[in-house]
């Protein structure tokens, strides 16, 4: 296992990268469902009117970095956090983390097609696939972030 200070640093970086991913994927997922270009006359219209495709490479880079950062600190979770939760009989948080670890892999597997749909396919083609890829990845990022936040808080309280 990695030493304590390094784990804490990686955990903070993992969380910060998750915040960036939340912002990127949410913005892109909201924008991808807009039916047609709209005038950006207020904050919400400007938010929806973003150039979604420009987010793609950054999403891929941050997703991979966040995933591998989480993979590095995962053994510490198993040895420290999960054992504490097990001893306390707190099964739901363990189940939430199980969902996070599985769904994060599915998101990783979707990244190549997600990237192709945004960067190589014509904007007029595969619209539903682009919308759904982006939305599913956004949902996975949200789940991962919220679960990590909950577990971090629980461990801080125990």
């Amino acid at each position, binding site marked *: 296992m990695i030493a304590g200070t390094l784990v804490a640093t990686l955990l903070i970086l993992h969380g910060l990268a998750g915040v960036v991913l939340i912002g990127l994927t949410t913005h892109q997922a909201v924008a991808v469902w807009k039916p047609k270009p709209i005038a950006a006359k207020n904050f919400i219209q400007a938010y929806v009117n973003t150039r979604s495709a420009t987010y793609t490479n950054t999403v891929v880079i941050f997703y991979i970095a966040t995933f591998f950062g989480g993979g590095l600190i995962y053994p510490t979770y198993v040895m420290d956090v*999960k054992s504490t939760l097990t001893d306390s009989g707190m099964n739901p948080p363990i189940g939430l983390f*199980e969902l996070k670890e599985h769904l994060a892999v599915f998101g990783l*597997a979707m990244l190549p097609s997600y990237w*192709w749909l945004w960067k190589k396919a014509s904007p007029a083609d595969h619209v*539903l696939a682009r919308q759904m890829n982006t939305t*599913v990845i956004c949902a996975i990022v949200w789940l991962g972030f919220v679960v990590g936040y909950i577990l971090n808080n629980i461990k801080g309280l125990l």
Partner: protein
Amino acid sequence: MNIPFALKVFAGVASVVYIVSFLQGYTLIRWYPLLGEASMEDLPNTAGPAMGWYSWILQSFVIGVAVAAVALFVPKNLTVRLGPTISWLIPLLVSIYTVYAEWHWFVD
């Protein structure tokens, strides 16, 4: 070569292989964090908890790449309608099934 179809096949196949590996316990290599060692054997309890996650990822991505390599050669006219859908529908369905499979944590 049908690169778009191969990328979408990879998403579907890797997701399915991962969850099948997890549910069926197909774990090629286990990581023992207490020992700081990987082993292809199922070590006794004194070795501490075993982690299969890294192995399931490796297995799913190796098989996903292999199947995607075959998918490269599928004619494009056969994949126009099916191709884009499998990139998100299979991972989404697998995700929903995963929630079902892990539901016991929330009710037991």
